[in-house]
């Protein structure tokens, strides 16, 4: 692991604090937030390659009508399912919350480490175990071909008789337990371990986003765990929670799943908001516009996220008043998200913008998020949902607004922080090439899917009527570009670690005001052992990332 050497090197400068285990023990037994963060990032990069390959294989099959490659359509369903699970639970969440969250939340709030370092280690290894279980599930029997929504009765023992679904359930249980422990760790760290002077209202927005995300995890994941447990006992111990023959109700699963599933969407996108806020502020050399509005908009999105779940269920046979309520509540989400978009634009407005690769990704994120947002406004309406539900319009929508948008924030975050993590700076030219390849790729990939969806093409099908051939071909071509962009990214990471130029403590100049830029690059093994004191006005004030935030000095 090249990073090990790099971090070791960093520790040199801080001789007295660098006592840490070496070799495999350093990683397996790690209680260091930076090492654990690095492991999360590596885990997510492995999972991303798996999940990515699945999606490219899916697009390859869909490139033209007819079944060419995936003759076993159960395997196609398994691909669709595993792609969803991997990307949600083992790519985006580990990278943004586990990876960047672990690395930079303690640095940003001025804490020496996470509140419970051993629990942090357990969180990571539970997540890793979850990944192993999930990969195993694909090889047990026919694999879980249920979609990530795992709706019974398709997921029941009668229709998925082998243990594949059980493996999938256990994978989510284990990874979910890891995430819950991680969430508790973040909340306790952020609430109790901030440096003197680092008030909540001075905290960088990335830390805010992780705090809110952690609360969402805390409230949503136990519900998923409960629902999954009931599914597990339905499958294996003869209970009837979701079985109508035994007095159960399959709709109950859908309610519980989406009560978790909708906040899960925000769990994915809120840290992205946080990262993008840091990027936009840094590269515009301006404090975040409307800092408090941004923080409270995120909180509002988190709260409203818990009362809109049934907009995923408009066609299941909900009463009309329920649908009217969920339509209205869902539309309301557009207000805080609008505040975020406009605040980012206002942050850039009047700025002195340096279009480095992370900033390109931040701008790309804003574009994708707006496109995905306006299609979300359409899908929110129960009145036209039956024209769009379960079509590619939905696929295009959630990839734009959540999946690819989150990936953009991740890429932006990687380029932004890789110098701090590895001590080496990436190659700007390669990174910009990678951005353009990926940006064009995902748009060619997903934009035509709006057309397919409007024209009525259902999702989760390995073959489609011939009339949909044209846009599917275009979409698959976009997948090819995206694949090249992804591979180029992996090469850039390799290139950076092997032959990148040494990174300065702060490569971004005066715009980068958060505390992680006050420590050396790579960040020493132990940081903030003497807590930095943040006060309004001096350099440390910039520690909250919004130096000129016009609140009166506290």
């Amino acid at each position, binding site marked *: 692991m090249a990073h090990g050497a790099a971090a070791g090197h960093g520790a040199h400068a801080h001789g007295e604090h660098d006592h840490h285990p070496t070799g495999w023990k350093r990683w397996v037994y790690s209680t260091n937030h930076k090492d654990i963060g690095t492991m999360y990032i590596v885990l997510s990069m492995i999972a991303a390659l798996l999940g990515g390959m699945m999606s490219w294989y899916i697009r390859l099959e869909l490139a033209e009508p007819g079944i060419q490659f995936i003759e076993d359509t159960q395997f196609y369903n398994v691909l669709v399912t595993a792609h969803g699970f991997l990307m949600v639970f083992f790519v985006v969440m580990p990278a943004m919350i586990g990876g960047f969250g672990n690395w930079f939340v303690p640095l940003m709030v001025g804490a020496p480490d996470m509140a419970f370092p051993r629990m942090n280690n357990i969180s990571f290894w539970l997540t890793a175990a979850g990944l192993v279980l999930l990969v195993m599930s694909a090889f047990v029997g026919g694999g879980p071909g249920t979609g990530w929504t795992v709706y019974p009765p398709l997921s029941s023992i009668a229709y998925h008789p082998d243990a594949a679904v059980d493996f999938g359930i256990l994978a989510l249980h284990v990874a979910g337990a890891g995430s*819950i422990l991680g969430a508790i760790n973040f909340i*306790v760290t952020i609430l109790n371990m901030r440096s003197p002077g680092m008030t909540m209202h001075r905290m960088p927005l990335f830390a805010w986003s992780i705090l809110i995300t952690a609360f969402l995890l805390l409230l949503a994941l136990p*519900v*998923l765990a*409960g629902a999954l447990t009931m599914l597990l006992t339905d499958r294996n111990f003869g209970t009837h929670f979701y079985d109508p023959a035994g007095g159960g109700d399959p709709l109950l699963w859908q*309610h519980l799943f989406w009560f978790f599933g909708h906040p899960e969407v925000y769990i994915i996108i809120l840290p992205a908001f946080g990262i993008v806020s840091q990027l936009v502020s840094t590269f515009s050399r301006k404090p975040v516009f409307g800092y408090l509005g941004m923080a409270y908009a995120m909180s509002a999105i988190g709260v409203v996220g818990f009362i809109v779940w049934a907009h995923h269920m408009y066609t299941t046979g909900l*009463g009309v008043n329920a649908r009217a309520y969920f339509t209205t509540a869902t539309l309301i989400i557009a207000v805080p998200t609008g505040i975020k978009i406009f605040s980012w634009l206002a942050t850039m407005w009047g700025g002195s913008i340096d279009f480095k690769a992370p900033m390109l990704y931040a701008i790309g994120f804003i574009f994708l998020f707006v496109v995905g947002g306006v299609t979300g406004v359409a899908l929110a309406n129960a009145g036209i949902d039956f024209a769009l539900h379960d079509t590619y319009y939905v696929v295009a929508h959630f990839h734009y607004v959540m999946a690819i948008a989150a990936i953009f924030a991740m890429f932006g975050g990687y380029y932004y922080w890789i110098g701090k993590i590895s001590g080496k700076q990436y190659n700007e030219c390669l990174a910009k090439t990678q951005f353009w390849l990926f940006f064009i790729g995902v748009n060619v990939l997903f934009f035509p899917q709006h057309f397919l969806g409007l024209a009525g093409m259902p999702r989760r099908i390995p073959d489609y009527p011939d009339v949909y051939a044209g846009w599917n071909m275009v979409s698959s071509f976009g997948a090819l570009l995206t694949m090249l962009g992804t591979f180029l990214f992996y090469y850039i990471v390799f290139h950076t670690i092997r032959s990148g130029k040494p990174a300065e403590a702060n490569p971004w100049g005066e715009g980068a005001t958060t505390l992680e830029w006050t420590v050396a690059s790579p960040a020493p093994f132990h940081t903030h052992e003497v807590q930095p004191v943040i006060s309004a006005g001096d350099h440390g004030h910039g520690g909250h990332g919004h130096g000129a935030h016009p609140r009166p000095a506290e």
Partner: protein
Amino acid sequence: MLGAQARGINRTKLTAVILFAVVAAMGGLAFASVPLYRMFCQVTGFAGTPRTGAYVGTASAGAGAAGEVTVRFDANVNSQLPWQFQPVERQVVVRPGEEVLIHYRAHNFADKPITGTATFNVTPFKAAQYFNKIECFCFTEQTLKPGEDVSMPVVFYVDPQLFEDPNTAEVRKITLSYTFFPVETQAQQPSAGEKAL
């Protein structure tokens, strides 16, 4: 300084304990949702769940003036259950508040006694809260001997408020649907076994 640190650690532990309690509560809520959801549906008529229980006598209230409503009957049998199951009357015209008795008929094709249980719902869903079942075979499990033919009564009435609620005033046809499922004990082995391969 030391005291402050100790306080900090206590606060940290306290926060963690509270958060673990929140996790436990949310997990508990997931399980509690099973009975809660059922109660919610029964109380509000949500998702087409009709009211059940004794007649509360509003026969005279809106009868006559408000007109009539046609109640249609629909029957489904899960294919794992070797029964025939049909309404005797396909539809009846009822006056609001009027107590009505109708029958379904079930027949067991199999050469062994089989127990079935029925789920039910009313459409349009919004009418469900005004559809009251006083007596129904669906409240209990039904066992049919081999070749047995039984008549299964349902007693219901339509609440006159159906015509007063602006949301449901236009409803003139209500459909009552049943689906019969085999009760696990007999059906489990063949069904799971068949699907297994």
